């Protein structure tokens, strides 16, 4: 595994492509599972997970954030 990464880092463009591919795969899986995450969020989440954050805790963070937006939108709707 480490060897592969080293090899991947040998050329800058190839590495970028690889990352893009990988992210696409992740995004596909995410879509398949109806997580409703957009690209940016997904990227941050992947980084967080790689940093060792508990996946379930992270999931609840996302849910919490969604709820917050929902509440905010609802309140703005009522205001308008």
């Amino acid at each position: 595994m480490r060897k592969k990464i080293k090899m991947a880092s040998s050329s800058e463009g190839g590495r970028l492509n690889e990352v893009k591919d990988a992210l696409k795969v992740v995004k596909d899986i995410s879509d398949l599972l109806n997580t409703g995450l957009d690209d940016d969020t997904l990227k941050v989440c992947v980084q967080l997970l790689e940093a060792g954050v508990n996946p379930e805790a992270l999931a609840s963070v996302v849910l919490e954030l969604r709820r917050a937006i929902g509440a905010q939108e609802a309140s703005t709707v009522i205001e308008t």
Partner: protein
Amino acid sequence: MAKTSSTRPLSSSSSSGLVPDLLHRLCTNFVKEQDQINKLYKLCLNIISSNVTQGVVSDEFRLCQRIQKKMVLRQREADALRFSELHRQMKSQGFVKDTIALLQFFYVLSEDGEKTSGEIRDTFLMESMNLPAALLPSSYNPKGQGVPKKKFHSSTPHSVSFSSSGLGSSWRSDPPSTIRGHHSTINASDSSVMLKDQSTSTSVRHPPPTSIRIPVFDPTESELPEDALVQDLLFVFQGIDGKYLSMKKGPEGFRIPNELMVHPAHLEHCYKLAELGWLHHKIKAYIDMRKQDFSLGLVVQSFLSALSLELTEYYRLVAVLEAQLSADQESSGHVTSDKLSLRRLVVWTREPLEKLRTLAILVDGCKNVRGGALLSTLYLYAQHGDPEVMRLVKHLLNQVYRPINTLLNAWVFEGQLQDHYNEFFILADLKASDDRLWHGKYTIRSNMLPKFIPESLARKILTVGKSISFLRQKCNDQTELFTPSQKNWFKKGDCTFDTMTGDPLSHIINITYRDTSKYLLNILNTQYHLKDHLGAFRKYLLLGQGDFIKHLMDIIERELAKPATSCYVHNLTAILESAIRATNAQYDEQDVLSRLDVQLLDASPGDTGWDVFSLLYRVDGPISTVFTPDTMLRYLQIFNFLWRAKRIEFILAGMWRKQMNHQKQLRNIPDFHVCLHQCQLITGALIHFISQLQYYIMFECLECSWAELLKCIDGAVDLDEVITAHSKFLDVIVTRCLLDPASQPLLTQLRTLFDRIVEYQNKQDSMFAAFLTETERRKQYELTKESRADQGLWAETQDETEREYQLRDEFYQSVILDYQSQFTILEHSYNDTLKSFLERVSDHLDESLQFLARRLDFNRFYRGTETVSLLM
């Protein structure tokens, strides 16, 4: 439910700066305003650091499988294939190192599209549902009916140990998510088996993603399909309102609203099946209502737990059915022959229905009972013709019996009553002092006596425990009466209702009863000399020691003749001491003699010492259980009667002695002859009366009962029998001595007779005094005459002679005739009293008293005159 993950510790030490940074970015992705970002950021940081998980499967392979299976279930086979492809790609790319974490993350989020995260299901229910079919009891496993054990098994092989909501909800949500949506309102209200919102997660319900195809039935469109009803019924089985079937208040149970179109056959089946739900609801409500109330006692608690166990088995069946249903839906499209239909449900639930019905009946029957009464009620229900019902109730009984078994063990082997909830059939009166330990402290509480323990056995159990407690507390005897193996009789693992009650129990009780009673009697006889004390009572209080009593009477007479107020205990005690020393009583045990004492009763004005004197025998320690204060009072009563009769006998003997003494002195004067003769006749009659009475008392009353008492005590099995025999002994004596309330008139007459005798004694004494004075006077006169004659004078002058004759005549007229008439009156009144006494005695119920009447009037002397006078 939430548990801290130990497998993935937050590696904050290595990337402490990274994580907050990323989190902040995450927040900015969602919201724009700065203050809100900060607020959310803090919240997120909290959540992350709380590190709380719901325990999503941590095995990557299994997680993938689950995700794929879910997709297949929703007819997204293509997606499932694509997922596995993408997963493989991701693995091979190696860009994401922690693929499992990513998948878990997605999984939780995807699930959340369908339901609110963090919902906790009733763990009880879930545990039972997660059990693989192979573990189900055979009774609930419809044999050969095509329950897809294999599929269910393979899908949740891990779940038994897992028992957390993550897995549970995952397959719980396998059925079309419509159900969940429709039930959301109920979920919030129902409390027993329902899903609850966790406090940490908020109850936002996201609309289900549109990509999932939801089979929705339009109720108004056409008849309800059978599948929907089956699905509904599975909820109803657990007492939860279904989509169509819902619980109405009142007795009718689950009903389908009228506006829904249901096939009549289906409707009938549905209602038949819905009974299960109703019954379940009833039992569950009973359990929940009482679960927290510990004051109801251990028996009720064990009954509740037994009921809960039965319900658990029932839940297993529901779990199996649900597994079957989800298997059906998995394979929907194909027409399978073993699809779950209403008809099948009816067949499969027949047995549990019967079971629940029985349980519901029990629940109704046991509403207001507790402790031993609950056992009685259950036992009565166990007397059922149906072997299945009988087995079920017996099974419950086995568990409910346990607390009673424990209590019984402590009671029978230790004499301890640990009945904190008043459930046991032996009641301890905590207010009763230790003196009343045997008599009043422990009683049988008949309403808590289980019906399968007969009254006689219960009494034996009471005696066993009482004996041990008596030995320990009163006799300070800590001897272990039972071998350890005997003590384990009640502690064996199989001491259930079936194995313990009936013959084994009575066998154990009989042995312990025999041993403890024997030991207790032995201790009382050897260590505490019970029999010696009984003998002392007989000898001294019941006048058995003749020489002692006679001597005591002789030397105490003068003291007792004084008025009661001038009698002193110390004087009398000294006399008692000398009486003991002078007679055979001195050879008695020192312990016995030291207990003998004198007691003076409360004196009323006019009483003499005779009326208040009484002997006393002091008892203490364990034997006072036999000689209770009540018994002592009866001894006192009997002693007073015997003492009085003895005194009368003593008086008459004295009178007879006097007569004999004065006979010679008085016989020279012919004037006295008639009167003296009358006296002798009366005395003879009185002596006859008193000697018959004494004979009767000594032999018929005392000796016979005493012999019987000795026999009873020798043959007694337990202390109770000794006490009963003793009290019976006293009863007999009291009755025969006419001391019981029923013989009160007889006793009064007897007292009158005694009083007459005392009166007569006084009269005779005064008569003798008068006669002797007269004799002395005449003797003096004669002497004067003689001395004059010696001097050669006329012995007497005419005047003197006349005066002397006049004197004698006067004496005769005034004194002798007076005495004669007095005696006649006395005799008459005595005879009258005796006659009516005889009449009453000969009608007495007691045979020996009738014999007394016969003996007193053996020649019909008294009654004969009566009849003659009646004839004339």
